[in-house]
């Protein structure tokens, strides 16, 4: 009897507390859906890996290899940059491919060097002068380079079996003293069969299953000199998420002031609503910026983050991020009626933004659609900016997209917050 009375009271309270209801039921469902999409939704089962391919050789073997990579369902192969204003761009070279990886266009570039086609298979005695495939990688993506390295071996095996057999027999002639006439005829017959099968399209890269035999040298072109590769990413990713929480909490002071009547008293003085909100925006931005400083200093002191080498970029990104999160917090606070409502709404919105925006799971590992959705969040732009500075060592001028978007977000959110706050201005 008593238990049912307690349950009844609690149920009525929960029904009246919409924030708690949202947190209890909506948030888990939203979260579950986001991660279900990230880790394999119905449409995008596996994220495709973008790879830049530079064929310097233009031999039969290299073309087969490129074709084989193209046929891999898990890869998006690009041999030239996206057209600019409809104009076709020239093919990647070793230099432009490396630059593109550095700029974050793709996590890996595969360079097939001149002379590769003469000796596509790598077994036999080591020969330093023999050209080998180069794999240029961005160390921040720990998955893509491994996948590409594996697929290269697979594709080499499945896309040019005839060339391999031919090369194999050459090696046999060279090191084992050659074949008898009968053996040679049989081998040639086999090679002819493989070639016909390849040319007829019966063999695809999916039908084969072979071991690794092309020589590949891997080189990190981004993050090669970093003390601790992922720290800068996580400092930004986790930092932004907590900044959002702090900013909405700090903006909640506005609600306390409404409730206590302090806001009324302040507005009856010479302070206008606009100057009050600008004051709060400035204070909350300073608070957020200080938080970032503490976070990155901690990263430097404990995790050897290269903080001091990137001060100017940090300041630019730090200020833009801080202003954007402060405006975001003010908007949330101005929409809500009570602290409890703000707590529930901010938890919901910030966790969703952080999961989509890459604060919990790197965006480059997400499906394409999720990566695009992430661009609607402050997290994504902030993390991208900090990554450019701390990871890719890019100059400050390259931060313009992140800076403009974050400042635009700040202005728009603040303008909306100011408009919504009119309800407190007069009765």
């Amino acid at each position, binding site marked *: 009897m008593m238990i049912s009375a307690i349950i009844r009271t609690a149920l009525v309270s929960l029904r009246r507390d919409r924030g708690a209801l949202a947190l209890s039921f909506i948030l888990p469902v939203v979260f579950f859906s986001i991660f279900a999409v990230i880790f394999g939704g119905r449409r995008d089962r596996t994220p495709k890996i973008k790879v830049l391919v530079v064929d310097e050789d233009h031999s039969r073997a290299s073309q087969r290899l490129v074709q084989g990579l193209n046929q891999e369902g898990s890869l998006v192969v690009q041999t030239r940059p996206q057209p600019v204003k409809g104009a076709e761009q020239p093919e990647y070279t070793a230099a432009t491919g490396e630059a593109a990886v550095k700029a974050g266009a793709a996590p890996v570039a595969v360079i097939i060097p001149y002379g590769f086609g003469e000796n596509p298979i790598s077994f036999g005695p080591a020969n330093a002068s023999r050209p080998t495939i180069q794999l240029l990688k961005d160390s921040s993506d720990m998955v893509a380079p491994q996948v590409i390295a594996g697929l290269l071996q697979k594709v080499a095996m499945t896309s040019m079996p005839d060339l391999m057999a031919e090369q194999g027999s050459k090696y046999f002639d060279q090191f084992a003293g050659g074949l008898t006439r009968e053996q040679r005829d049989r081998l040639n017959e086999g090679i002819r069969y493989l070639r016909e099968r390849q040319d007829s399209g019966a063999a695809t890269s999916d039908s084969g299953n072979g071991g690794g035999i092309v020589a590949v040298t891997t080189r990190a072109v981004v993050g090669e000199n970093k003390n601790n590769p992922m720290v800068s990413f996580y400092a930004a990713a986790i930092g932004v998420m907590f900044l959002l929480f702090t900013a909405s909490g700090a903006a909640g002071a506005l609600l306390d002031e409404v409730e206590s009547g302090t806001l*009324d008293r302040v507005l009856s003085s010479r302070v206008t609503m606009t100057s009050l909100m600008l004051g709060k925006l400035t204070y909350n931005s300073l608070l957020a910026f200080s938080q970032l400083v503490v976070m990155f200093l901690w990263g430097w002191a404990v995790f050897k983050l290269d903080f001091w080498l990137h001060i100017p970029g940090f300041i630019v990104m730090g200020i833009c991020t801080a202003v954007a999160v402060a405006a975001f917090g003010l908007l949330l606070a101005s929409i809500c009626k009570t602290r409890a409502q703000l707590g529930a709404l901010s938890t919901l919105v910030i966790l969703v933004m952080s999961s989509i925006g890459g604060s919990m799971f790197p965006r480059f590992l997400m499906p394409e659609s999720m990566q695009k959705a992430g661009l609607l969040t402050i997290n994504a732009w902030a993390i991208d900016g900090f990554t450019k500075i701390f990871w890719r060592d890019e100059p400050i001028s390259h931060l313009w997209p992140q800076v403009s978007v974050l400042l635009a977000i700040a202005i728009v959110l603040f303008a909306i917050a100011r408009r919504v706050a009119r309800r407190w201005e007069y009765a």
Partner: protein
Amino acid sequence: MSLPVTSAPIAPTSSSPPLRVDELVKRFGQVTAVDGITFDLRRGECLGLLGPNGAGKSTLIRSIVGRVIPDSGTISVFGAPADSAAARNALGWIPQELALYPRLSCRENLQSFGRYHGLSGDALKQAVERGLEWSTLIDRADELVRNLSGGMKRRLNMAAGLIHQPQIVLMDEPTVGVDPQSRNRIFEMIEKVQGEGMSIIYTTHYMEEAERLCDRVAIVDHGKIIALGTNTELVQSAFGSRSKMLARFAGAEERVAAWIAQHGGQSINGATQFTIEHPTEITGLLEDSAKNGLELLDVSLHKPNLESVFLHLTGRELRD
């Protein structure tokens, strides 16, 4: 952030009263909170707005300080529109709520509100010290507000409203929820600023407060001023020189009832009430009751007060 330089106080002119409210109307949906209120606040006076909860007193005050936009009517402060910077500076508002920063100390609260009113430097420092002294919180100056007693918070709330030394002070029920001792302290604070020539509007639903502090009283009900004048004027206009005599008699009920009816009295809750023009009438009534064999148990004389005026005008008690 820097605030504009403090504007000069409005120079009193002989023609403009400190505050003039004319035909003010404010509606909230279907409810008319203020219904055509008109009055002048005289220089140096304390005008009481006496009325029950929900009468529209706070809405009127909030309209004057610009926190409520009236639907019609005008408010002027020394002849200037109420929303002008000069008017804002001339007005000091002590809201009913404890509008203070709980995590700041008394001194820090006064400093903050002083700055919001454009004070800085020595002027701010002096204003803060004056406020602390006036509210007798000097020895608690550095105490956080959340640790103060209710009465202390009320006093600080008042000091914050007067930090910029306004010429007109609007006090919205400043004694709500305080114990009698703290209430007396608050009265002393108000009497002190009255002595300094500030013009005050004081809203209350306590008749005793209006009687003690106010030079004139406006009785407010359902958003209207139903009577305005000094205490004596209001009583005089409602009751003339009449008073009430209350008496209780023992004896046969029928005989008592007949005697009461004969003398035009009323029977209320076992007591008998007579309206008399002069206290000397009491002797005549008592002698006659004795002659009729009624035994007098007790008798009292009640001079009418503001409460009686309110009851007389509205048919309701002030605290209804």
